């Protein structure tokens, strides 16, 4: 059984030898790709408002269009190359959220449509929805209690 001291010593050694992550390169790539996906969203939004959708609805529909595009990109296997290059630049936009739902859906098809596709679809996106709703509820209730919402 290794002592705590031995563990500490070894972890210091590991830290000394671990190659630094290429943070600057990663952050720049994330910025550019994340920015470009947002620009694509803005263009879609512009198109939808020109078609006569109210701008409040158009943001929701823009998300849906981006999700559709991401499903295609995931299906053709190009979205993972984008994420390999851009990291969170591909994961953080709604397209990345879509990829996290579409990818297990495709991947677990071989385990069947119910317990595979159906059950595994939210392995990654599930926590996002859970914490999104929970934190939103807390914030909305706080606003209500503090009288920030018209009654």
């Amino acid at each position, binding site marked *: 059984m290794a002592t705590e001291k031995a563990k500490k010593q070894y972890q210091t050694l590991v830290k000394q030898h671990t190659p630094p992550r290429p943070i600057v390169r990663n952050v720049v790539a994330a910025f550019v790709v994340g920015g470009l996906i947002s*620009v694509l969203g803005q263009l879609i939004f512009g198109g939808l408002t020109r078609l006569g959708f109210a701008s409040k609805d158009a943001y929701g529909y823009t998300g*849906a269009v981006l999700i559709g595009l991401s499903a295609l990109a995931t299906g053709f296997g190009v979205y993972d190359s984008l994420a390999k290059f851009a990291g969170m630049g591909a994961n953080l936009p709604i397209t990345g959220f879509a990829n996290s739902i579409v990818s297990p859906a495709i991947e677990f098809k071989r385990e069947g449509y119910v317990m595979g596709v159906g059950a595994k679809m939210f392995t990654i996106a599930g926590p996002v929805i859970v914490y999104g709703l929970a934190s939103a509820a807390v914030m909305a209730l706080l606003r209500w209690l503090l009288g920030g919402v018209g009654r």
Partner: protein
Amino acid sequence: MNLPVILWAFLIGGALCAVAQLVMDVFKLNAGHVMVGFVVLGAVLSGLGLYQGLVSFAGAGATVPLTGFGHTLVQGMLEDMATRGWIGVFTGGLKAASAGLTAAILFGYIAAIIFTPHG
């Protein structure tokens, strides 16, 4: 006239992703954790009334990253609470997010039917 918004969309959308990348690399988190963190961040900023301003000048730059999803949930709840009271916490969130969530589930299911996994 449209150009400034597009520029802001690029800058704000890019900046949010850059911060997320920084957090992931510095704290050695995996993508799932950072995605959860940013949804919560969006909800908090929205609840504090700070996010709507970002949406109005950066457009999709604020709505496309996952912080925008948190913002949508909070705003949906607040909207329903304005007309129905506290029950709006239960009815407003997913209503506002329904287009995105339904699209993700349906497109995910269709993709599973059409595509074969290739890794």
